[in-house]
Structures are given as structure tokens and as C-alpha cells.
């Protein structure tokens, strides 16, 4: 009897078999977002996946599932340990967040737990001050920080997220020590602290800061990226202002699968997904929402992950 059951089980297993790339996907796909509904990552994930049901894309819709908590740790822990590696379970990643968290420990994932598929967006960190602030350039900020060590309060969305990394890089480049104030409630709460004058400056997402500047609430003093942003062509980068700050703090958003996903499925996704991101409808909606797009292929993302891992290892070693 036991043998028969084992035999049937084996037969059934061979029936389901490994997924063949040609047939993949044959049912709807799920994508986990480790931040709450309505957040920037969730919002963008919904836009970039909205055309996945088209014939020229995956031909199957992608459903977004939110698993928020602990700055993304809850979702990514779940993804690394419990998600099925069959290609039907995708997740959105946020670099440098998850890499920095894995370096600081207490989580069950690292860059080795995931396989990148493609990148859709890059939201650089920018330095903002209130509209009526005495500071008008990064030079003013650094001069004040040098005169008053530890007294310049700067808000950001939390510890070991892009904003914090940017603050650390500015400190390292200028030889200053700012008082970084992590807020609960993400970038919105950090921006509110700047507008209300609770802190002297803040580091925030370019997209949110752009909106706040349009509304006349803040001034943007510098962009922590290698090039100027097309949204803010007049705002110089940190490098242009003499601060050696590269793009390590840029918030890259993209899609990944768990390690162990069949190679042919990864290849199929890696070939289709970047084209899906480049769809006209997607880019139009992203532009309307003020979300900067930056499409990267699987190989480019792999390289970017490795670079970040190295920079962050050095930057966070002393903390």
C-alpha cells in the first residue's frame, strides 16, 4: 500500500514537472511589496505591472500583495524563507534598504537569497530645507555643520535606508557630524518635520521633494546622484558642490525572485520584464506621478547589487 501511494505521488510529481519556459506563465503571478498599500514602492509597483496581462508582455496579470512591517524586513524575510521558487512569486526590492539591513543583521536574507530580474525606478535622495531657511546651498549647510558639530538636525525616513546612507556619505565627504533624526512613518513624516521647522534640514526622496518644492514648502539644495535629474535640471549634484557623494543612496526599485527559481523561468522573466516596464502607458503614468524611471536589465542589476554591497560594507563598518 505504502509503495503504491509513493508510486502515485511520484507519478503526480512527474506530471507537474519542472516548468518549461515556453509555457510559463500559465496562471496569474503574485508580486510581494514589503511596504504598505499607498506607499511610493507600492504605488509604482502597481503602475509598472499594469500591462503584464498584454500579449507582448507576460500574458498573465500580476497581482500585488503587501506584506509591510519593520522597514521592509517582514516582507523580505517571508520572501527569502517561505516564498515558492517557481517564478509565480515575485517581489519588489528596494536597494540600498535590503542590502543595508542584511549587513546590520537580524534578518534572514542577503543579496545571495534573491535573483534580480529587472530594475524599474531610481529615486535619488535630495537635501531639502524649509522654504525660509538660512541655507541656500550645500556649502552653507556644510559650513554650519562644521561650526556646530552635532547640532545640525537632519530628518530622514529611518535608519539604514537611502536617506541615512546619504547623510553618512555627506558626513564622510565633508568631515562633519550632523544629527540624523530617523522618523517613524517614512518619508512623509520626515518631510513634515522639515516643513514644520522641527528640524533644520532633511534628506528625502527626489519625487516627494519635487512635489513639496512645487508647492512652495521647501528648497532643494543638492541631489545625491551622479547626474542631475530631469525633474530638477537646475539643482546641482553633491559632486558638483564639492562633496564626494556618489549614487549609493539612490533608492533603486525593481523585481526579483527567490534563489532556486528554475533558470529558464528567470531567463524568460529577465527578457520580458524590462520591455514591459518600457511600455508607453507605463512610462506616461510614471512621469505624471513624478516617479523617475530607470530601467535596468538583470545583468546590470546584478552588477549594481554587488557594487552596493561593497560600498555599504565599508560605510556601515564603523557603526
Amino acid at each position, binding site marked *: 500500500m505504502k509503495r503504491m501511494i509513493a508510486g502515485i505521488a511520484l507519478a503526480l510529481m512527474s506530471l507537474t514537472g519542472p516548468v518549461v519556459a515556453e509555457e510559463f506563465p500559465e496562471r496569474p503571478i503574485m508580486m510581494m511589496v514589503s511596504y504598505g498599500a499607498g506607499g511610493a514602492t507600492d504605488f509604482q509597483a*502597481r503602475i509598472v505591472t499594469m500591462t503584464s496581462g498584454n500579449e507582448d508582455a507576460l500574458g498573465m496579470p500580476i497581482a500585488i500583495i503587501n506584506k509591510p512591517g*519593520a522597514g521592509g524586513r517582514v516582507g523580505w524575510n517571508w520572501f527569502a524563507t517561505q516564498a515558492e521558487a517557481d517564478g509565480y512569486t515575485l517581489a519588489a526590492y528596494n536597494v540600498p534598504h535590503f542590502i543595508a539591513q542584511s549587513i546590520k543583521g537580524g534578518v534572514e536574507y542577503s543579496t545571495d537569497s534573491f535573483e534580480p530580474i529587472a530594475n524599474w525606478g531610481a529615486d535619488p535622495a535630495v537635501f531639502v530645507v524649509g522654504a525660509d531657511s538660512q541655507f541656500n546651498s550645500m556649502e552653507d549647510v556644510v559650513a554650519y555643520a562644521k561650526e556646530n558639530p552635532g547640532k*545640525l538636525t537632519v530628518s530622514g525616513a529611518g535608519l539604514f535606508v537611502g536617506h541615512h546612507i546619504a547623510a553618512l556619505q555627506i558626513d564622510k565627504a565633508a568631515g562633519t557630524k550632523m544629527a540624523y533624526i530617523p522618523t517613524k512613518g517614512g518619508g512623509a513624516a520626515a518631510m*513634515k518635520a522639515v516643513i514644520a521647522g522641527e528640524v533644520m534640514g532633511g534628506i528625502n526622496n527626489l519625487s516627494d521633494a519635487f512635489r513639496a518644492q512645487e508647492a512652495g514648502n521647501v528648497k532643494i539644495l543638492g541631489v545625491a546622484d551622479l547626474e542631475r535629474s530631469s525633474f530638477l535640471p537646475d539643482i546641482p549634484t553633491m559632486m558638483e558642490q564639492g562633496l564626494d557623494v556618489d549614487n549609493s543612496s539612490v533608492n533603486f526599485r525593481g523585481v526579483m525572485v527567490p534563489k532556486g527559481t528554475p533558470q529558464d523561468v528567470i531567463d524568460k522573466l529577465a527578457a520580458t520584464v524590462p520591455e514591459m516596464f518600457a511600455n508607453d502607458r507605463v512610462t506616461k503614468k510614471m512621469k505624471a*506621478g513624478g516617479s523617475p524611471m530607470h530601467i535596468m536589465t538583470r545583468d546590470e542589476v546584478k552588477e549594481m547589487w554587488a557594487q552596493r554591497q561593497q560600498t555599504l560594507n565599508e560605510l556601515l563598518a564603523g557603526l
Partner: protein
Amino acid sequence: MEFIYYFGEVFTPLSFLLLLGGTIGGLILGATPGLSPTMAVALLIPFTFQLEAAQGLILLGAAYTSTVAGGAVSAILLKIPGAPANIATTLDGHTMAKQGQGARALQLSFLASAVGGVFGVLLLIFLTPVLAKWALAFGPSHLFWLAILGVTVIGTLDSPSVVKGLLSGCIGLWLATIGFDDIMGAQRFIFHPALGGGINIIAALIGLFAIPQVLTMFAKGRHNKGAEVIEVQRHSILAAIRELTSRTRALGIGTLTGSIIGLIPGVGGQIAGLVAYDQTKKFSAEKDKFGTGHSEGVIAAESANNAMVGPSLVPLLTLSIPGSPTAAVLLGGLLIHGIFPGSDLFDNHPDVAWTFINSMLIGQVLMCIFGLYVAGLAARVAQVPQSVMAAIVLALSVFGAYSVQGSMGDVYVMACLGISMFFLERFGFSAAPLVLGLILGPIAEANFIQGGMIADATVGKASYFLTGGLNLLLIAVVLASVAYSVWMELLHRRYTTKEEAQA
């Protein structure tokens, strides 16, 4: 008065249809356990992709107002608060339903919701610029004191004994520390991966309120069946309106408290209902009746949680800062149409802004009409035999806890908290103060740490937290609240001892 010009937009056929759909759908979603207003609005966002900006926002605005009110249905009939906003509604509302007055409780709650809601939206229309400044005035130190003010309420809320109330509040505060701490990222009491994100408030609410009641029903067993079936009294809508107009104090306190608290970013609607309930109780001539199915409790709680809807959108619409999770979702709904909240919204897209606000105003009225219509029918739920009811509530609880974020972990959390609460209730502890601790703990803690960090870099903790007009005002209110509780406790004690001595 600009908003009047845009009323026409709301009544175009498609807009009005969306408004109706949003309101009815919102009521149903709101009444479903586990589906909070935030989630209901998030679920609707994809539908707005295909619509014009103004129409999309009509749908979202109508859904937001009516889910908040719809939460009262499950709170009153099933004792499952749909969202933190409805906790206070269960305290008296469910007791009324058990006495066969479910129809009356529902009618009062919808009427009070409409009054509070309309007042809140009117505030949004007329006082937005003033209110925006006010919302910004609350920094970390003020939010800290505000949370402490909430803590002082714990002892007196729905608990026969101050000591037991405080103890269950402490349990709540402890539960709130579980998980990765939000600011420093430290791990606290995480013994199971499901606890990494902390205790989910919706799952906790379902567990703490619904499960003890299910267990009690099961514990009664099958004997005396039929005896439990309650006669559901009919209640005319006119009588409900008359009752509401005679309870102006509860309605006034609820509406004002809700409007003020709704304005403060980050605290928002979660505690509006509870604070309004407690304040109304303190000012009421019939304090002892609270918790025994007293209509003032329902009126205060429901007028407060709908009054908060309008003001909670002030920081979003004027400063582009979402003050609550639901506002964050609405921000997404605006951005997807390329509209940036803030001055851009009112200057360049006044049609969208005012149509959205008007739709919330009309949505309140529609919500009230539909609510009153179904109240009489819905109240018959109380006639379902207890053994069947227990099974239904249990199934809904599991479904609700699971649907919060599609995780069995939340179901385990709900079950553990529910079973523990069943035994705690046997010892005279109650769930409301525990939940208040669970909600206020993180607010007080995060703002203390954040304020402390700013203070250390600038003026020092003592002057940061203890000086400034708003800080001193809040401290004074905290002290007054504590003094009042102590005084009432002493008065009550002397009274009972005398009575006992005579007996």
C-alpha cells in the same frame, strides 16, 4: 464659497453613479471584518486608472467616508470593530444590540456619523488654511504629550476598577513593543517570524473583541436553546432623529473631539472615537449607564470617527503630506492622474479638488440614507441562535485577520490574544484599555525617542519637552485628567463604603 460652483459636477450621471457605487460598496467593505478604510480605498485605486481624475476621486472619497461609518455595523452587531476607529462603538453599541435594540443603535450611529462627517467636511472647506498651520504645530514633543493624555484615559475606560484598567493598559503597552522597533530597528520579543512586524492592530482588535465573545457563546453550550433568542425591537427613524437632537452634548463633544484629533498627523482617527467616548462619559449626567447599552456612547464614538475624516485630509490637500495611512493611499490616487496635492491642486485643478470635497459631503448624506434603510434589516442578525452566531463570528474573525495582509501569522496572533482575553475578562479586565495601550504605546515611544534626539542636538530634553505654550497646555490637560480620575475614584470609594456600612 467656491465649492458651490462645483456641485453640478457631482450630479453628472457617471459621477453620481460612482458616488452611489462608492457609498454602497464602502458600507459593505466597511462592515466586513478586517477590511479597514485604508485597505478598502487601496483596493479601489486600480479602478480609478480608467477614470478621469475627478471621477476617480469621487469614488475614493465616497468609499472612505462610508467605510468609516460601515465599520459600525460589525462593531454593533458582531462586536468586531472593523477598524480602530470603531472600538468605542462596540462598548455600548453591542450591548444595545444584545438587548434587541440593534436597530436603534445602528440608526443612531449612522445619524451621528452623518452629522459629524458633514461638520468635518465643512471644516475642511472653510478653514483649511488655518487648520493647515495648526496641523504643523504638532511636533514630536506635543504628540508625545498627546499620547500621554490618551494613557490617562486608560484607567477609566470601560473598566469597573481603575487598577485593572491600568493593568490591562500596561499589557497593551507591552504588546506594542513586540517586533522591530520603528526608529532604531532593534528586535524586541520576536520569538516567531510572524511577530517581526509587531502585532497588527486589526488582527489584535478582532482577537480581543470578537474571540472572547465567541468562546463565551460556546461555553454556554447547547442547553437553554431558544431562550437566548432576542426579540428585535423595531425602531422608527423619526424616534432616532428625536433622540439624537436630545443628546446634543454627546453629539457636540464627539464631533468637536473628532475634528480636532483628526487634524493631528499620525494620531488621527485611531483614537478619536475612544477619546470622544471618554470625554462624553466624564461630562455626562448618566456616567454609570455607559457600557450598559447607553445611546450617548454610540453617538459620541460615531460622530467623532466620521468628523475626523474631513480634517484628516487637510495636511494632504494643503501641504501634500499624508497625515494618515488612508490619506497616503488617496495621495497615490491623485498622483496617478498627475495631480500634485498642495497649492497646485486648488489653483490649477479646482474642479478636481472641489468635486472631491463635495462628493464627500454628499457621500455622508447618501451613506446615512442607505445606513438607515438597512439598519432595521441588519439588526435581525441578533435573532440568529447563539450557537450558529458563534460559528459565523469565528469564521469572519479568521477571514478578517487573514485578509489584513494575507498571512496566517496574523490569524495565530488573533487566536492567542483572543484566548488570553477570554481568561482576562473572567478576572474583570477589559479589552478597550488594552487596545488603547497597544495604539498609544508606539506613538508615545517614537515621538519621545525622536524628540529626544532633536533635543539632544539642540536645546536639551528638559526645555524641549517642558517649555512652549502648546507643551504646557497639554501637560495641564494631562494633570487635570489624572486629577479628575483620582478624585472620581476616591468619591466613588467613599460612596460604596458608606453604602456597604449601611447594608
